[in-house]
């Protein structure tokens, strides 16, 4: 009997979430367990068991993990040697020379992942158009190999040659040589990861791949072996930073592509759920213990970008790989509130983390956090956190807020807690503005805030009010939403190649040929993954700028633009995007192409979601669990009914103020809000904007 089960496992810093989906019944099974840093694969096994299912019964196993990003952030990766074109080994350390923290005399640059002594140069040189100025000198490559050999314990080798995005021959020849010479080493070259110009960013990308490569490679093999031992005989695929899937074979080589898989999968879940609900434009809002992250779904598609900085803008390392476009602020449930030396009240970005955690966890933390404020104000219950598995200490929360905030500022406890919440809300609303206004998008065009993560439902209504967003959606199992999103993901291959050419000087046929070459690679990856579906969707984009500009923008160009006779429609798309993003377009000015981008998506068969039981407008008596007093900032105390989410039925309506509680989360309905439960169990909240 063919299996109908697909299982997704999302390993995060604190928890491992498993979501399993029975494609025949539509039933969704969930398991949450603490991550097991010593041997991460154990968390998966436990989570799968907790969800009450077996890998042996699944035909598809999807996985996203923080292993790659943690390896980078913890600096626990491989010993790497970097091989570059002669004259350029230092570009990795020099970087872009910028100093964003301008008045800080202790400003630090990015910290390279490979020491200078192991940044080695070989003689070779390509020109900007890919022609060979100086052939690859095998003697100098041999000398470099000798140096690596002498070092003794190099585990991975990264190769970056100038202009390799136009001609990869030298890099590939070096790779072949080095692989043969060092069969145990992980060898990676820049052109296999990125074919975009910008030598520093490409170096940083290939070095990061080398740095995390050996560990990720071992990890993936271990999980694969463990799954096979458990009787799994289906397909094992990994989640990329775009939220798209790729094969185990690709993942073992292109390790950097899975850097941000968890957060990306949440946005993919938002995109899929919005599709089912008929919502075209939405903002995803994912709030956990330390951060709040916002992404954008526009015209049904999640927005992605071509690069990111791992470790933040100030001192981070850039990666030139496609990513979900996510803006993050350092405000989460664990964010600490404090009074500065000069009497200012601040919230975050320091976080109490999971240990010691907020004061109310009773694990020794005495700093007041956003979670403590929520508890003090009645928005969280002492005895229902994580389904009652964890007791919260209200007195400890009150004491921390009194001693550290209320007394120094001469405020009442409640006033102080309410202030913490208001400040946290304001800073989270900046995360949302970060993905809209900063990109030239009008937040008013995104009338739905799709909120998940453990702390998202608790704050979504306040954040929506701050931003005047009229509707909030809280999906089923918001604490498992990234794992759920993986179940709805597609196979995806992103390809990009830098091609500097003026639009008016390139033949349309030539442009089409370049795209066709890229897309052949994408189709081959899909074919190679042997998906059950052969349905492919191709989308194209061009990085363009006006002649004379430095900065290029990525323009999505519909395929139809390439079947026309002229390039005028391409130019029009660029002018329009430029106008939207930068306030002005210049149809009369010539434009040039910097890079071409193509995404080939292998559409996976999607599970059909089960509908929950229907009920009337009034929630059943079984759903109502009680009543308690809750403080709403700016409005004071109000009596609130509390409901058990699992007992709500489709069609139920609840008027705020009210609290909807579930295992890992609480949804707060402010006075004036109204909620209805849709047929998939989503809580659809209409925000009472005055």
């Amino acid at each position, binding site marked *: 009997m063919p299996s109908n089960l697909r299982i997704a496992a999302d390993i995060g810093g604190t928890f491992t979430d498993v979501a399993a989906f029975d494609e025949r019944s539509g039933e969704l099974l969930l398991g949450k367990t603490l991550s097991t840093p010593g041997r991460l694969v154990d968390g998966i096994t436990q989570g799968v068991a907790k969800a009450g299912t077996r890998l042996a019964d699944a035909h598809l196993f999807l996985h996203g993990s923080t292993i790659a990003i943690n390896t980078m952030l913890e600096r626990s990766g491989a010993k790497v040697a970097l091989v570059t074109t*002669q*004259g*350029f*080994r*230092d570009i990795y*350390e*020099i*970087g*872009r*020379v*910028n*100093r*964003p923290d*301008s*008045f*800080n*005399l*202790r*400003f630090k*640059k990015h910290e390279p992942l490979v*020491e*200078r*002594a192991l940044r080695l140069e070989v003689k070779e040189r390509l*020109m*900007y158009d890919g022609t060979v*100025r100086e052939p690859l000198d095998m003697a100098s490559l041999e000398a470099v190999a000798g140096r690596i050999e002498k070092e003794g314990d190099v585990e991975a080798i990264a190769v970056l040659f*100038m*202009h390799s*995005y136009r001609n990869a021959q030298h890099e590939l020849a070096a790779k072949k040589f080095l692989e043969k010479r060092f069969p145990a080493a992980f060898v990676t070259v820049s052109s296999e990861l990125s074919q975009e*110009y*910008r*030598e*520093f960013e490409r170096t940083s990308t290939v070095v990061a791949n080398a740095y995390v490569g050996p560990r990720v490679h071992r990890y993936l093999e271990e999980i694969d072996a463990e799954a096979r031992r458990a009787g799994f005989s289906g397909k094992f695929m990994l989640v990329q930073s775009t939220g798209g899937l790729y094969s185990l074979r690709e993942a073992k080589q292109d390790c950097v592509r899975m850097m941000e898989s968890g957060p990306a999968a949440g946005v993919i879940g938002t995109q899929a759920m919005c599709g089912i609900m008929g919502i075209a434009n939405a903002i995803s809002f994912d709030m956990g213990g330390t951060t709040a992250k916002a992404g954008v779904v526009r015209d049904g598609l999640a927005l992605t970008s071509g690069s990111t900085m791992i470790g933040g803008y100030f001192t981070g390392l850039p990666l030139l790989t496609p990513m979900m476009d996510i803006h993050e602020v350092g405000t989460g449930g664990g964010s600490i509130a404090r009074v*500065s*030396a*000069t*009497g*200012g*009240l*601040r*919230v975050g970005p320091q976080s109490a983390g999971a240990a010691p955690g907020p004061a109310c966890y009773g694990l020794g933390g005495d700093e007041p956090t956003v979670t403590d404020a929520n508890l003090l104000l009645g928005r969280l219950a002492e005895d229902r956190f994580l389904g009652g598995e964890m007791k919260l200490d209200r007195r400890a929360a009150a004491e921390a807020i009194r001693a550290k905030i209320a007394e120094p500022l001469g*405020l009442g406890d409640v*006033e102080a807690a*309410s*202030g913490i919440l*208001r*400040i946290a809300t304001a*800073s989270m609303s*900046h995360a949302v*503005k970060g993905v809209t*206004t*900063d990109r*030239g998008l009008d937040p008013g065009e995104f009338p739905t805030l799709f909120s998940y993560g453990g702390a998202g439902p608790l704050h979504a209504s306040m954040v929506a009010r701050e931003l005047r967003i009229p509707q909030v959606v809280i999906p089923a199992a918001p604490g498992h939403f990234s794992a759920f999103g993986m179940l709805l993901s597609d196979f995806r291959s992103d390809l990009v190649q830098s091609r*500097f050419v003026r639009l008016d000087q390139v033949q349309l046929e030539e442009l089409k040929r370049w795209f066709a070459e890229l897309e052949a690679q994408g189709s081959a990856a899909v074919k190679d993954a042997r998906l059950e579906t052969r349905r492919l969707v191709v989308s194209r984009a061009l990085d363009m700028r006006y002649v004379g*500009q*430095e*900065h290029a923008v990525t323009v999505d160009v519909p395929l139809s633009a390439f079947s026309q006779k002229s390039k005028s429609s391409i130019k029009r798309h660029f002018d329009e995007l430029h106008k939207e993003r*930068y*306030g*002005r377009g210049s149809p009369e000015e010539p434009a040039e192409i910097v890079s071409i981008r193509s995404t080939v998506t292998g559409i996976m068969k999607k599970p059909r979601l089960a509908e929950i039981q229907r009920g009337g407008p009034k929630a059943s008596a079984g759903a109502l669990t009680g009543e308690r007093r809750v403080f709403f900032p700016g409005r004071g105390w109000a009596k609130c009914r509390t409901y058990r989410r699992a007992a709500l039925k489709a069609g139920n309506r609840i008027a705020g103020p009210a609290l909807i509680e579930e295992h890992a989360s609480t949804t707060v309905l402010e006075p004036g809000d109204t909620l209805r439960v849709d047929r998939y169990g989503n809580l659809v909240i209409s925000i009472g904007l005055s």
Partner: protein
Amino acid sequence: MEMLRAPLLGRGKKRQKADPVTVELVRNSLIAATEEMKSVLMRTSYNMIIYEALDFTVGLFDRKGDTLSIGLGLPMFIRGMSNTVKAKIDYWGCKNIEPGDILLTNDAYTTGAHLNHLTFSIPIFHGGRIVAFSTCMAHWQDIGGILNGMTYDIYSEGLQVPHVKYHERGRLNRDVRDFIRMNVRRPDRAMGDLEAQLSACRVGVKHVEALLARHGAAAVQASLDDIMAQSEAEARLQVAAIPDGVYEAESQMDDDGVDIGRPVPIRVKVIVKGEEMTVDLSGVSPQVKGFYNSNAGVACAQVAFKCLALPGDYPINDGGFRPLKVILPPGTVVSALHPAPYRVWMTYPMTVVDTIFKALAPAIPERVIAGHHADLLTANINGIHPRDGRLWLYLGGLIGGGWGAKSDEDGMNGTICMNDGDTHNGPSEQVENKFPLLVHRYELRGDSGGAGRWRGGLGTEVEVEALAPINYMTRSDRVVNPPWGLNGGRHAKGNRIAIRRKGELTVFPGGKVDTKLAKGDAYIMSTGGGGGFGDPRDRPIETLKRDVRQGYVSLESAWKDYGVRFDPETLEPSAE
């Protein structure tokens, strides 16, 4: 001269206490407002100096022109805009400024910098009176004037726009617009930048109006007072920790570009007394003949003060500068009078800032930093492109240099100088795609960091071959006068300009070079390192060994500067 005010806290009339939550919400809103002004300007401006080199400032000012919050492109712009707003208020008088007005000037002696800095302000009204100003300055690619070479007065530097109303009660002043259009080289682009600046100002207006509507004018005012008082209190705490005393230091610039080889002295005096600091710049050289003049003296003092006392305090507001007094007589090179030329105004102030740190080194060695390379090290390069026969222009250099060591840290390698902040270099792959140039190497300059217990950061070096004939001009400084060390740390290597003709290297004695290169010739630009801190002989052997292994310090320098001989093979220190 900045006026010193009575401290807000603990003296005089008791201030009405603001609600701390509202204060924090207002504080975050001010930061968000200036951030959005920045973002709008960068997104909508037309020239790359604005959106890539961040050559601009946006800000919100109170009705007297004091800074409430500024969003800086470049650190050295910390003072100029407030001065400009104050000058506008003085010129027009509040009663003559009306809703719908947009005030404009680029007067160099007011903004403190070159004529490219057009500064627009929109007054914000509440209850019928002015409560604030939203302002934007941005660097225009061109403002007329001569294209190349030295300037000797302000008239040769382009169009001077006096105090005018660009809009008057909501109506565009066409005469002013047409006057500007006729005097700049790329009027369409300039007008694009102008519109971007107005958009940025309007975003500021929108934010302030929303703030007033949400919290009410009284609460906003109380919050602003409190934000400034907090910055002031923080600054006072920091200054109080500096031992009282009079601290002096001196340095010099190589020359003014006219009297080549004749040094220009920079003398500063810092007086610390209790919670207050006075920076006396009377000893800075009189204004010079070449285009290195500015009116950035107060900015120099404030940049140094912010780095020392308030590096993490945002929004940047004038409360923080209340404990700082600046003595700056007119006519110095950083308070230069009409008609002094200002075009390369930004080079000298960086050295003034470093000299203030140098003066304070004996008092607070743990908080200051040794000298840095202190020059953008740019070159104007142009020629005819063989691909299309057209003139191309390229601002070369901007490669980052060494920063000074501190009492407990080595200096940063290859980082942009003090005048700039979030400015990026250009990828060599891009340079080669656009211009007939071939970058041979872009690398760290070994041994360029000053030796010390803590080593200065390394400068960088770029060698670029001309694939077609080019004109090459640079006006660099601090070639002869290298970045200094502190507390026994050695000085670094200075900036350096060289060319290679037919394979033969020529190193120029100074930084002012104007030449032509033939196909196959190359220019070499090298930035200085940072000065060292503390006695080099105290640098631990293991640390020095690491330096040698990485090639930051050569075997020769390890022996000559640090007194340690390493075996070239094993890198073990030898016994002698």
